[in-house]
């Protein structure tokens, strides 16, 4: 259970999955923020207003998958590091990363699942670490489709010798 282990269950995850049609259309954000907390920076970060305005700051963010372009602007804004972007056409996953060293394009990293277990090696295809993100890098890795919903963190270092 999420409350006991910190790992969202498949029930929790049901709440966020855009349908197959939407996934085919291109990149889309997945917000893994499942419980009410007084927090709202994600709403302000979206240039396309895809995240509904919070009526109450404690609301769970509600993302309109049709409006979302998968631009990834929201990823680094979230203090919970709870936002990811998947692209089922390019088979990529973008995630927030706040550890050093920040990997570079072309590096091989471990893809970790929600429990921190190494599940798949992956290649880094893009790293965005602009000053405006204030040290939260957004790392994009390439993964087989079946891992796009499983990998949620990376381990850098080991695989590059």
């Amino acid at each position: 259970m999420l409350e006991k282990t910190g790992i969202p269950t498949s029930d929790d995850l049901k709440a966020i999955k855009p349908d197959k049609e939407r996934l085919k259309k291109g990149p889309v954000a997945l917000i893994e923020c499942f419980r009410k907390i007084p927090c709202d920076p994600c709403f302000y970060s979206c240039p396309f207003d895809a995240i509904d305005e919070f009526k109450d700051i404690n609301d769970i963010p509600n993302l309109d998958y049709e409006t979302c372009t998968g631009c990834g602007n929201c990823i680094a804004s979230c203090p919970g590091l709870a936002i990811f972007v998947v692209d089922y056409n390019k088979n990529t996953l973008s995630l927030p990363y706040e550890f050093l060293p920040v990997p570079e394009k072309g590096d091989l990293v471990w893809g970790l699942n929600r429990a921190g277990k190494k599940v798949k090696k992956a290649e880094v295809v893009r790293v965005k670490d602009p000053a405006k993100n204030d040290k939260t890098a957004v790392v994009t890795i390439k993964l087989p489709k079946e891992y796009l919903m499983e990998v949620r963190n990376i381990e850098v270092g080991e695989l590059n010798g």
Partner: protein
Amino acid sequence: MINTDILVIGGGPAGMTAAIKASESGAQVIIIERYHELGGQLIKQTHRFFGSKKEQAGIRGISIAQELTEKIENHSNIRVMTEATAEGYYEDEVVTISHENKFKKIKAKKVIIATGASENMLAFENNDLPGVYGAGAVQTLMNLYGILPGEKVIMVGAGNIGLIVSYQLLQAGVDVEAVIEAAPKIGGYLVHASKIRRAGVPIYTSHSIKKAIGENSVQGAEVVELNDNWEMKVGTEKVIEADIICLAVGLNPLSDLLIQAECEVVYTPELGGDVPIRDENLKTTKDHIFVAGDVAGIEEATAAMLEGEIAGLKAVSEIGYSNENIFEELNRLKTELNKLRSGPVGKVIKNGIEKVRRGNYVGKNRYSHLR
């Protein structure tokens, strides 16, 4: 004796916003802080703050502290005294302070107390072994002095502080072997829990620390499962190796000055300990004393800043530095605060505040027998 309109005690987010608001109408303000710089808890927070975007959430605690400090420096009618500790509260709003090793007195028309909180300790066997630290001490070492406290840590407490400090330790390259939590559920925000969980840190709820292991310093800890009545389950003991045991088992409002000043305080578990009775403008039972932030109840920086603004505004308005929009502004701030507290986390806080509302409070002052 130093005279001033407003004295703010404590230079954390609550005290800083109180000083800024109070000074904007032209009043003379002194803010004293016992540390050598302003910022309070914020200067140790390298993580992005959750909370309301309007109150700076999404940016790092340390950056919020810098912004507020710059604002304060731009107000010429705020005098900042660092390395200045309020030692005692005497009659007629005279506060004695020790400033840069000298003893001084300040007399103010209104005093805003924003002293924050102190960390709780936990009683377990061998808890005096070197290597047992409070989370605050670990943060100070790591984030202010750049010193790694050790190599492997066991974190006790899965509230927000335990979760966030675990994350900061991971970022510093320290292994977090486990997070131990006595309650059956993680107390902190689950996004923070998931963040460290997917970095490979196990979180053991319904577990407690039985003893620290080691001869001259910590080498590990014996942890044990708890049953539904929070009793240790015999036979479930296991040893986790580590050279640091970090305690993040809650905060206690630093209400000493309020108690000295004989403001009514009531023990209120929802708010973390003995907290002052106050009205919605954060005025205590003493006409000249306001409070704001964690000393009024353990909460968050966003709430602390809003409370600071309310207290600052109201305090100056009572000594004649009113601006015409004050009612609107106070109402806006109170509405913001109310919105912030409308979720499940805020509900507990609200219940607590209801108990200590001036005029209709329940509960006992644990210090009243002294008068």
